[in-house]
Structures are given as C-alpha cells and as structure tokens.
C-alpha cells in the first residue's frame, strides 16, 4: 500500500519541532508499524537525510518501550496492543497517518518521536517496591497464603508495562492509571500491605511533583492501555490514599 505520513520532527529537546510529510510506497499489510518506520528510515539514510528517532526495544509488546501517538490515539487504532504489535493491515492504501510523540509536560521530547519517560521511574523509586531484607533468611513468598481473587487482581495490575499510553491519551496527561496499577499490585498482597500507607502517599506526591494532570475519569486510559489495566485500580488508589491520609494511626 502507498501512504502519506505526517511525522513530528524535532532536532533535540530544546528545538522547536514541526510536522513533516513523507510518502512511502509498497508497504505490506503484514509489516508492523515499527517495521514500516524502519523502511522509511532506510530510505531516508540512503538519501542522506537524518532518520526518524523513535523508541523501541523488544518488539513483542512486553517491554513498554515503544510509544507513538498514531492518528490521534496512543499506540494507534488497534486495541490491547503496543505500537510494535500494530500491523499495517489496520490501514488502507492511500491513507494519511499522523505520527506524533506522546505529549505531556512530564514526558519531554528527546528527539523526533522519542520522549523521556523517566518520570515513571522516579514515581517507582518513591514507593513502587517491597522492602525485603535479603540477608539470606528471606521467607519464601509462596509460603504466605494469598486469597485467589486478590492474587488475580494484583497480577492484572502488575501486567502494566509502564509505556505511558495512559498519560498520552488522557486529556489531562494524568498518570493515575499507571500509579493506580503500581499501588494496587502491592496493596493487594500481604507482602506489600505493610508499606501500603507510605507507598501511596509517596508515589502520589512524586506523581504530582512530576507535573502530571488530574484524573477526570474519562476512561480513555483504560481503553487505550495495551494491557487493559482497569479503572478499578485508580479507585483503589483513591481509597488507599484516603485511608492513608485520614487514619489516625501512624
């Protein structure tokens, strides 16, 4: 198929970017979206032009590294997939495709379509872990009984790959689905419960400090999330937060 691509080009973090038009032909429907960009980059290199920078790593939908806002949607028009799993058969011959970086104050553009998502790392550092003494006598985690429903919910929350599609798609650039998933995956398990109070407060504090917006409960994040993380996780985070900030026990 032949396509017109409108791609955001930006030399570096400090430069002003703009949309640039590219024509590309003979694209197979079996290619992934990133493979289509690879073909374009090869052509640009052959012409002596600067290739387009975009994030990618595993190309199997599990690392959370690829991003891209394609035709107005995070990870493109398909559901439950990352950009690397989006196939060109989702598009038609003659289509015009807008390709933009994930937009948020907290996700500054590094170059072209690549954005810096280290704000998520800093939120994780603020509390997205369980403190374990690893001196050699650590208890086997499987020795602690966990209710099946809670284990399932914790596992569902833990499937978040931290790609940032929730932030990109949210009209407020809110990170609450990501933080909600991280808070939930620990709060639901006995191992994480111990630090639940400090965790939710510290992670929310860091989230706010990074400049993410507030949640308006539009539900767009849940729809666009490649892992189908549920809004229930945001509600759980809200509950955890309310519990932590209003309880009298320290």
């Amino acid at each position: 198929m032949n396509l017109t691509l409108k791609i955001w080009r930006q030399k570096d973090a400090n430069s002003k970017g703009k949309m640039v038009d590219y024509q590309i032909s003979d694209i197979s429907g079996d290619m992934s979206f990133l493979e289509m960009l690879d073909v374009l980059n090869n052509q640009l290199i052959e012409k002596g032009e600067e290739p387009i920078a975009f994030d990618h790593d595993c190309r199997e939908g599990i690392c959370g590294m690829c991003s891209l806002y394609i035709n107005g949607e995070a990870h493109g028009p398909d559901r439950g997939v990352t950009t690397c799993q989006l196939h060109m058969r989702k598009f038609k011959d003659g289509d015009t495709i807008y390709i933009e970086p994930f937009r948020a104050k907290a996700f500054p553009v590094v170059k072209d379509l690549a954005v810096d998502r280290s704000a998520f790392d800093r939120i994780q550092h603020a509390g997205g872990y369980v403190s374990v003494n690893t001196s050699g006598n650590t208890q086997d985690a499987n020795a602690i009984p966990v209710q099946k429903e809670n284990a399932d919910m914790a596992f569902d929350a833990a499937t978040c790959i931290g790609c940032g599609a929730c932030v990109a798609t949210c009209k407020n650039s809110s990170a609450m689905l990501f933080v909600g998933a991280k808070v939930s995956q620990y709060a639901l398990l006995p191992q994480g419960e111990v630090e639940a109070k400090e965790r939710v407060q510290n992670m929310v504090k860091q989230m706010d400090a990074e400049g993410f917006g507030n949640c308006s409960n539009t539900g767009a994040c849940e729809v666009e999330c490649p892992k189908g993380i549920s809004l229930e996780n945001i509600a759980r985070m809200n509950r955890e937060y309310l519990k932590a900030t209003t309880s009298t026990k320290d």
Partner: protein
Amino acid sequence: MSKSGTFKSSIGRKIAMALSALFLMIFLIQHLTINITATFSPETFNELSHFMGTNPVVQFIAQPILIFAVVFHFVMGFILEAKNRQARPINYKKNNGAANSSWMSRNMIYSGLVILAFLVLHFIDFWLPEMNYKYIAMNPEDPTRYYEELLHKFHSPIRVGAYVLAFVLLALHLLHGFGSAFQSLGQNNKYIDGLKKFGVIYSILIPLGFIVTAVVLYMNAQ
C-alpha cells in the same frame, strides 16, 4: 505528609470535587421536589417556599453551606482545569478523543460554564430580588406571593428557552459527573454497575423534571 495535605494533592482535589458534587446532587433533588409542586398546587408551593424563605436553619445554615459548595465546586473545577492544561503544553495535531471517551467526560468544563452562566441568571431572577425583598426593602412577610412571582419570571419564552438549554447541559454534566464522583471516592466495586445505571436515570430524570416544570409554568403564565 501531614493530614492537612489530603486536599492539596491531585487525589485530594478529586475527592473534594466529588464530595461537593454529591452534596449538590442531593440539593438538586430537594430543589426539584419543591419546584414540581408549583405545577399542580400553587398553595403547596407557596407554603414550602415560605418555609424555606423564613426558616432560620434553612436561611442561615443550609443556604450558606449551599453557596459555599457551589462556589467551591466551580473554583476547584477551574483550578483543576488550569492544572490539567499545564500538564500538556503542546497539543496533538491530531487527537481522536471520541475513540476512547464520551463527549460529556471530555467537556465537563464547558457544560459547567453553561451551568455557571445559568446560575448567574437564576440568582438575578430569584435570589437577588428575594434578598432585596426581605433584607433591604424590609417588606412585610407575605406567604402567598411566591407562586405569582415565579409565574411572572416564566412569562418570557427566551428565559424559558435559556432555562431548558441549561438543564440539557446539566443532564450532560451529570451523565459523566455522577459515576465520576463515585469513582473519585474509590467506589469502583461490585456496586458500580448498578450505581452507574442509577446515575443515568438520575441524570436524565432530574433535569427533565426541571424542564417540565419550566415548560408547564410557561404555559400557565400565558
């Protein structure tokens, strides 16, 4: 974090927004209940209005709380909107919001602004003349005046049209706001589906009740 920090955080603001919304949604039921009586019993409407207008608990406790809740909900709404806009300094060239969210959820600020404009009109129509009647002009109490005053206001088709439009926007605001308030309060649990269905019924019936009242009064005023 100190306990007072609850309402300074993003989640705290959402919770505050939701609590003020729940209070206002309960108030709407009370307001509509009194309004509806005007359509079938002017005497009952006069009695209830006189009670609301003269009872010291309503006047000096409930009314200030209501005004505070209304102002708070609007001011917090504007603060959140401003913060949310700051969170994305460069917008997308192409954004397909309709692919993943409802129009209502994406335009709460606009439906809210229409409701604010309506409230200004509503205050000029009823609240300011009432304050003037009671506390500035110091007119004597007249328990039978309310229905006539109401009817007088609904003589104009333009005003009735403005009221109807505002209530349509209120319905759209509630269609997202009702469920959103419970989600913000962390109530996404086994009851949420039932609650959302109730929310849809509430969001349509309450504004519809106000619209029906306005239209009936308009017809009675002709």
